[in-house]
């Protein structure tokens, strides 16, 4: 059994919209992967099923041995955390300290440990003590995103799902956020699931891709394999990174269609 097992999951919203059907997948502890697909493909619904906010219409979600149907939400959210795309949709406390403490307090953690968890989470995301007393809305978007992640970290979930972490960020900020998520994965052992439309981010930071379309999982493979498969990319209505498309345009020169970075492209060209 893996840390996360999703078995033949289907979810239909109360208005009759079938958002997921026949989704089966496993995620091991310590993986870093991306979840891609068009808006409406079911990425967010799947995320909400993983952390127990939504219960399967049929099928099962089992995290760390806990089936979401027979576990409390607090059991699920302390194992799978979800960071919203827009941190402002998640932040509502008057200080960053209260914001980060809110989750642990809510699942019944006692005060001395809450303080300990706040300090720990703030340190991990690089928020100084001067920030903890500030109102989150006076921080930059990059820092607000860190507060949002810290608020999830304080619940100490093994799995963290981050929805579009780089939207609206410039290239340098995007690299900084992705570097930080990589650190959480490599040094703190968190399983990280990135929901993103940015295929450059997918290629640079994650080895495994879950691709969704119309409520089903259409591919579960490496970035290299998925980007070199035009049929899957078309079904997901996505285009590979520009460097991969360049490699594919030069396929007749013997360049591999799964090139993922400029360095790989240069090596492939020099070897052609």
């Amino acid at each position, binding site marked *: 059994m893996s840390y996360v097992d999703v078995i033949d999951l289907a979810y239909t919203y109360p208005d009759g919209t079938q958002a997921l059907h026949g989704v089966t997948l496993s995620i091991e502890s310590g993986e870093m992967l991306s979840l891609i697909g*068009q*808006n*409406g493909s079911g990425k967010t619904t799947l995320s909400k099923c993983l952390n127990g906010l939504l219960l399967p219409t049929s099928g099962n979600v089992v995290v760390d041995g806990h089936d979401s149907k027979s576990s409390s939400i607090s059991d699920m959210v302390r194992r799978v955390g979800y960071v919203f795309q827009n941190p402002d949709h998640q932040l509502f406390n008057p200080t960053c300290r209260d914001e980060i403490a809110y989750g642990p307090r809510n699942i019944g953690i006692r005060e001395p440990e809450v303080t300990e968890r706040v300090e720990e989470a703030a340190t991990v995301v690089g928020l100084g003590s001067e920030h903890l007393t500030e109102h989150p809305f006076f921080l930059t*978007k990059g820092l607000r995103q860190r507060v949002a992640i810290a608020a999830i970290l304080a619940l100490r979930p093994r799995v963290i799902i981050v929805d579009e972490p780089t*939207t*609206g*960020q*410039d*290239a*340098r*900020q*995007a*690299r900084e956020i992705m570097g930080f998520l990589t650190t959480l994965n490599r040094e703190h052992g968190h399983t990280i699931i990135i929901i993103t*439309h940015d295929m*450059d981010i997918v290629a640079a930071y994650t080895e495994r891709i879950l691709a969704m379309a119309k409520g089903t999982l259409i591919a579960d493979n490496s970035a290299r394999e998925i980007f070199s498969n035009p049929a899957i990319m078309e079904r997901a*209505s*996505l*285009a590979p*990174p*520009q*460097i*991969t*498309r*360049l490699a594919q*345009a*030069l396929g007749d*020169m013997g360049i591999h269609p799964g090139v993922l970075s*400029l360095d790989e*492209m*240069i090596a492939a*060209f020099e070897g*052609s």
Partner: protein
Amino acid sequence: MSSPAIQVTDYSWKYLHSTTRAIKNIELIVQPGECLGLIGSNGSGKTTLCNSIDGLIPGQYHGIKEGRVEVFGTEVEEYRRGELQRTVGLVFSDPEAQFTAMTVEDELVFGMENLGLSISEINRRLEWVCDLADLSPLLDKPPYEISGGQKQRVALAAMLAMQPRVLILDEPTAMLDPVSRERVFAVLARLRKEREITMILIEHSLEHIIPLADRMVLLSNGRKLHEAPTRTFFSDLSLLRQEGIHLPGAVGFSGYLRESGATTDEPAISVEEAAQQARNLRGAAKGELS
């Protein structure tokens, strides 16, 4: 000679409560019909500069202005109230910020009614923007019930219906998924082909800005660091790398070929051009061997 669409002369702006100037001694000329791509990291002054051209600065913000910002030869502060906003249309990344009506059709018509246009003219323009942005199936829907990509096309169409001579787009696709993003850029490309409109486009994705922009400007820390026609802009990549700008794969690869001395061609700025450069080099190598 007619005046430029936009002429910015030794312009600086400091927000009232800030200690440093957000814009520092900017010089910029945009000719009528030209599309200018404006790039730079967050906080580099892109939005401040655009808001200065639309008159939001100094109109809606307190601060200290130095230098001149002229639109079609007239300083922005000398325009009569409302007249500048008729000339310069602004589209933001958050389309909901501009919605006021209960149906898409009312949203599209609202601005035109405010301009006092005749019903026949309103209908003519409505037909044009619906066709341009593919909105006919949505006319009866409430703007808040349609998808993000559709919302942004409505926001853009509502602005275009007022036929501003200058259109400023501030990260118009930042919130959109790839398919919706392509559709918005397709609308802009078609618009440029069909009408003479002056455009300033702020966008982090160089891949999307390159096919539209005639000229590019890089802002950093309130200053203009680099300006050139789009292709020439990528002749020297060191400055862009130093500023942490993410280069599209084709531009990066062509840069490698040029920097390594393999080619003396101009920079390639699309996948097709970069592929052709690579092919030419391999073709040349084979020719030498035979």
